[in-house]
């Protein structure tokens, strides 16, 4: 059928021209010597003026990493990574000690401006309709921590957050200023021995964000970190640690982009969340790393370990992710439901096009009594991409009354892509109730023709149908991210229809 053919042809023409964040910032940088050794780790630790315990922690992780092998169980295929051919630390060369945002290299500020990330302390919601109950636009602000290659370049609204008792700062600073908190929580959710990439991260992580919300405090604004890989042949290994103490609430957003390059770049982050009694953490990601070009050349290898620990009773952790970038995505944001009545949620949209490979999903580990979890996953595959949902839902034998609902829907555009669903379900307690639903459908030519007959272009029609398909998940995002995500979905699929 001509239309089918047309759609498929257009999908094949997907190109990097669609990637709008592919520019490079020309800036002097300071790098660690290439390759990985104990010296590299000492160099990084020294750069950050870290206390001795931190260096020891890193070295221990490094020694452990040397004994580990790369995991191969994911449905992704890539040439072997030469870990000695990478830079593990790169920082914009500081001209002098920075005391205010005005002293940041203007090139970097320009980069963030181009990306639409406000580093100046302004409310960015002007003219946008507020979500019901979200407060008026002028009172809604977003605090941003911007990470450029290996260092945090700016954190906004620090003072205002401090008044509320919230600590939001680069983790490198937190190690020096709040060592008791960092030592207590770092590695308590994702231990240094957890997996190959998490262990590597533990050894070489250079920066990331640290958040601590004290008991009973509702964080007065959305917190956001924006990650940018700029330097060539440089891995980015950020580490994020978020703690919501008893009865606290925080909503955290994360965004990522990288320049367009022919070589692959490695990104191996670790995110740890800890929610104490009655606390709630909402973590949203819009991941748009460079996906590689139409031949599958270049792009980010994204090997990320994200895990939340519902440590207290009645605590709640909710992951929402919109994944459109990266050549390879290997990522399973998970929840350990340790506290009684705790709740974990995972909402995901994963879009793959061109030669992208996505193996993503979640783990819900029910340990406490009457814990519940909910998984809504929407995978969209176009081009020659492979999109896999991999999920684990498990109930410990003491987890009486555990409940899970899982819905995995996949949508295929064209006939050269693949969607796969790999659910693992284990119930060791007979009172557990687990539900799993999965569907796979092809975008129907009849639906497209109906839209086109009403005046929509082929591209608009695909965009509309896809946005309808992912609506349940988009609704979970904070509004300003939902708008961005919706645009991103259209851009990611732009090549799919011309």
């Amino acid at each position: 059928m001509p239309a089918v053919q047309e759609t498929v042809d257009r999908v094949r023409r997907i190109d990097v021209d669609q990637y709008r964040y592919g520019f490079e910032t020309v800036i002097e940088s300071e790098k660690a010597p290439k390759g990985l050794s104990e010296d590299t780790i000492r160099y990084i630790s020294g750069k950050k003026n870290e206390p001795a315990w931190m260096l020891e922690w890193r070295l221990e992780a490094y020694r452990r990493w040397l004994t580990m092998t790369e995991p191969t169980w994911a449905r992704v295929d890539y040439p072997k990574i030469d870990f000695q051919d990478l830079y593990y630390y790169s920082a914009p060369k500081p001209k002098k000690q920075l005391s205010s945002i005005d002293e940041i290299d203007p090139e970097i500020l320009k980069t963030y401006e181009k990306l639409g990330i406000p580093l100046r302390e302004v409310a960015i919601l002007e003219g946008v309709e507020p979500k019901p109950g979200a407060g008026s636009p002028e009172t809604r602000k977003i605090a941003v921590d911007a990470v450029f290659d290996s260092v945090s370049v700016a954190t906004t609204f620090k003072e205002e957050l401090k008044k509320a008792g919230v600590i939001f700062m680069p983790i490198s600073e937190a190690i020096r200023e709040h060592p008791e908190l960092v030592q207590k929580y770092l590695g308590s959710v994702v231990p240094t021995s957890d997996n190959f990439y998490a262990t590597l991260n533990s050894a070489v992580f250079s920066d990331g964000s640290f958040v601590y919300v004290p008991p009973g405090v509702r964080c007065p604004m959305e917190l956001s970190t924006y990650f940018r890989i700029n330097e060539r042949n440089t891995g980015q290994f950020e580490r994020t640690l978020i703690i919501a103490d008893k009865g606290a609430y925080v909503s955290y957003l994360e965004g990522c982009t990288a320049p367009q390059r022919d070589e692959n770049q490695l990104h191996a982050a670790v995110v740890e969340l800890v929610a104490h009694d009655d606390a709630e953490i909402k973590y949203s990601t819009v991941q748009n790393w460079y996906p590689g070009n139409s031949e599958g050349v270049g792009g980010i290898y994204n090997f990320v370990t994200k895990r939340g620990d519902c440590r207290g009773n009645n605590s709640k952790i909710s992951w929402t992710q919109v994944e459109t970038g990266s050549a390879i995505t290997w990522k399973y944001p998970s929840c350990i439901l340790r506290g009684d009545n705790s709740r974990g949620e995972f909402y995901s949209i994963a879009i793959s096009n061109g030669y992208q490979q996505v193996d993503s999903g979640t783990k819900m580990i029910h340990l406490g009594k009457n814990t519940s979890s909910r998984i809504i996953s929407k995978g969209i595959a176009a081009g020659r991409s492979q999109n896999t949902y991999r999920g684990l839902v498990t109930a410990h034998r003491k987890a009486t009354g555990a409940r899970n609902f899982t819905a995995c829907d996949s949508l295929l555009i064209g006939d050269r892509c693949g969607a796969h669903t790999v659910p693992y379900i284990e119930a060791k307690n007979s009172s557990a109730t687990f539900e799993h639903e999965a569907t796979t459908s092809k975008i129907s030519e009849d639906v497209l023709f109906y839209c086109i007959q009403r005046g929509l272009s082929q591209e608009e029609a695909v965009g509309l149908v896809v946005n309808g398909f992912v609506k349940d998940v988009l609704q979970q995002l904070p509004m300003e991210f939902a708008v961005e995500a919706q645009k991103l979905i259209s851009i990611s699929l732009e090549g799919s229809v011309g």
Partner: protein
Amino acid sequence: MALLEIKNLQVRVEEREILHGLTLTIDAGKVHAIMGPNGSGKSTLSHVIAGKPGYEVTGGEILFKGEDLLAMAPDERAAKGVFLAFQYPVEIPGVATMTFLRTALNAQRKARGEEEYSTPDFLKKVREISKQLNIPQDMLKRGVNVGFSGGEKKRNEVLQMALFQPSLCILDEMDSGLDIDALRIAADGVNALRSPERSMIVITHYQRLLNYIVPDVVHVMSKGRVVKSGGKELALELEASGYAQFEDAA
């Protein structure tokens, strides 16, 4: 003046010829009924006019307002005023009917170089039309045709027709799956849209629909051709004697 001129149209689907030189002229403001047995090519004709992929035109031409319709992309045809009310309207989960209507209307207006409707103007217009068609507001908030009854789906088609104000409406078996009350509501909606500038092609197997939408001209199709044309009384004649008499004529 002729709004639509179809001359000697030949159409194939996967090597098989379905229309073997069909000729039909429709003047502005007229309602033409096309009747005929299953497989006579009625739906093929409606799909080819709207530009549905999968059909190969091997001969003949279609002029719409004097322009070469076959040279236009299907969304272009919609913007120019060709509207096909589908026999089986599709469901689009997650896309609110209101969003769909607005996106489509603005896409058409943009293609014609007209300004987009403002939100209040658009809402006012949709409310007005949906009231006439007895469409409850909550239906407009639901996904396009998701969970709609047969009657609701057809009313939703008429709603779009009223909103887009096309100059050519093709109603493909609008009566299929409708009970008599639902049929009357839909037909009333269609009749309200009759005007000296707007032409309609009403495709149906049964004379029943034509009691509600009274045509100016009736054509009988058989085996890919128009085999007989006449006034509205031709439909009654068919109802009495059936299509068999035309099978040989074709």
